């Protein structure tokens, strides 16, 4: 790929100059200092052959007129023998590019008018190139966070390699539109295996003539695969978006931070877009973290649930979501505040397996426990400067919450292996007690921090732990989801025979100062 090789020329000559998505692949490789491009003609197998069968059934006379695998490498590779000895660290990404051609009589040009591209791609023999799939490494910058990154295996030449990333795919306007490719992107990670477009379309109950999917069909796909989720149509729920304008951002962030991902549906901007224009959907799988962002200080992001309670959500330090846009390619930063609430019509937060509630509900439910408990902890009885700082932050409603869905073993390991700022480790007896206790397998850990601590070194002052396996009732006096609270110097549990005003039991903790946040 050294000069005078031009990626732009290569795409023009070999593929389609009209495809921003294919150009994006080469841009990513160039930006990652790719030095070798390997181009292979491959045969359709597995889900590619399955797709060809599906398109053939929809468009008799269909032909696949091209199938090429390209891979990008940071090292210089000149022959097959050298490729065999390559290791994964120099592997930047791969893509399978597919050219599909259907007889002209099936072409409805209006179906291919793509307002985002501003062009009408030619769809005549020999066909139109699209990205069947691609995986590129994430930008290595430490502020780009991708929880639960997936490892994909792919054969290049006769050697199998692994690459970390999140699968991207592009619509071909035949059997896959943005809804199907967005679903496949997240499903490949959730299911830990690939899923064909035919299976997605079958699960959705899509009719042969239908383009794209309806919300009910997206729900069907997820439900039939046993995937739990929370989704919100804001046109049906105007009160929700009016009262909580950043609601969709919280949902998207909760799905991303749990390692499952989110889907965002929005209407495209531009005066040429009619009101009846179908909506666009894109998957989010990560976020950026900007410790110096002004947003939390400016109250823009403050989540004010009621007059006396609220918190600064940890997504306040997120400048952009990381996601794919099938029209333009993989691994984009989508500025969080760019998608105005009035343009976002629908959001899906994918829940981790075993979880019954959303991260935003868990955060909200944790609020009264923290606020009430800190009202009654006598600072003089339990002198601790970090506890004191937390109490002060809560009194002025400047406390930071971050909800993380993890299993009980991971939580106990987190406590057992971490050290607080004064190099204290948790007492063995506490770890043993938690290990022996009948904790729910799936926990919502609502991490609690203060504004100057959380962004600076990603540390916290404690957590409210809730049972992730049960629905939250939304009733006063429902203590059933509460498992424990850990604050500097102590754990707090609720006795079972409490009255309306519960008795908390306080046990000592050796963790008396701030502690690292959980990373997944």
């Amino acid at each position, binding site marked *: 790929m050294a000069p005078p090789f031009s990626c732009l020329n290569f795409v023009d000559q070999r593929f389609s100059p009209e495809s921003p998505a294919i150009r994006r692949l080469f841009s990513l490789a160039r930006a990652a200092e790719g030095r070798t491009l390997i181009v292979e003609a491959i045969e359709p197998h597995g889900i590619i052959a399955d797709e060809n069968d599906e398109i053939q059934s929809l468009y008799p006379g269909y032909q696949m007129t091209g199938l090429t695998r390209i891979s990008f490498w940071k090292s210089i590779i000149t022959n097959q023998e050298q490729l065999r000895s390559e290791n994964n660290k120099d592997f930047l990404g791969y893509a399978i590019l597919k050219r599909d051609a259907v007889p002209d009589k099936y072409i409805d040009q209006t179906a291919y008018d793509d307002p985002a591209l501003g062009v009408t791609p030619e769809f005549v023999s020999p066909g139109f190139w699209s990205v069947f799939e691609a995986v590129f490494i994430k930008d290595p910058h430490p502020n780009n966070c991708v929880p639960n990154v997936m490892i994909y295996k792919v054969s290049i030449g006769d050697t199998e390699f692994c690459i970390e990333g999140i699968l991207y795919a592009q619509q071909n306007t035949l059997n896959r539109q943005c809804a199907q490719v967005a679903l496949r992107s997240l499903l490949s990670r959730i299911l830990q295996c690939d899923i064909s477009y035919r299976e997605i379309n079958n699960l959705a109950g899509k009719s042969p003539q239908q383009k794209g999917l309806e919300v*009910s069909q997206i729900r069907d796909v997820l439900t039939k695969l046993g995937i739990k989720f929370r989704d919100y149509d804001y*046109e049906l729920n105007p009160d929700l978006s009016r009262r909580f304008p950043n609601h969709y951002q919280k949902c998207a962030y909760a799905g991303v931070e749990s390692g499952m991902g989110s889907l965002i549906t929005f209407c495209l901007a531009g005066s040429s877009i009619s009101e009846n224009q179908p909506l*666009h959907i894109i998957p989010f799988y990560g976020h950026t973290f900007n410790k110096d962002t002004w947003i939390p200080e400016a109250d823009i992001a403050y989540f004010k649930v*009621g007059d006396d309670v609220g918190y600064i959500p940890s997504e306040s330090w997120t400048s952009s979501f990381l996601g794919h846009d099938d029209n333009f390619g993989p691994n984009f930063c989508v500025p969080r505040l760019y998608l105005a609430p009035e343009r976002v019509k629908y959001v899906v937060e994918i829940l981790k397996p075993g979880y019954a509630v959303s991260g935003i509900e868990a955060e909200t439910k944790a609020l009264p426990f923290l606020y009430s408990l800190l009202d009654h902890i006598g600072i003089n009885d339990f002198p601790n400067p970090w506890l004191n700082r937390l109490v002060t932050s809560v009194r002025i409603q400047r406390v930071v919450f971050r909800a993380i869905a993890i299993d009980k073993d991971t939580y106990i390991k987190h406590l057992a292996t971490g050290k607080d700022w004064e190099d204290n480790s948790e007492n063995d007896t506490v770890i*043993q007690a*938690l290990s022996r206790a009948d904790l729910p397998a799936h926990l919502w850990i609502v991490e609690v921090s203060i504004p100057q601590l959380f962004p600076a070194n990603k540390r916290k002052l404690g957590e409210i732990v809730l049972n992730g396996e049960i629905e939250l009732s939304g*009733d006063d006096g429902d203590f*059933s989801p509460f498992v424990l609270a850990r604050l500097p110097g102590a754990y707090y549990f609720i006795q079972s025979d409490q009255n*309306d005003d519960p*008795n908390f039991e306080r046990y000592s903790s050796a963790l008396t100062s701030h502690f690292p946040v959980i990373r997944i």
Partner: protein
Amino acid sequence: MKRVAAISSNVAKQMAHTSKEKPQIITVKMRYDTSINEFIRMNKEAYRRTASSRLKVR
């Protein structure tokens, strides 16, 4: 509706048994804010209502 914190109580018992520590008891007057439960109910209702969504994406 009052629902007990059975799990929390059981973990506390295990903590007492393992650590041999006598816990301090703190009675807490819960600070309820109707907005919290209202938000949870709104969220649940919005999710339920979304089942009848007619939005199309492609």
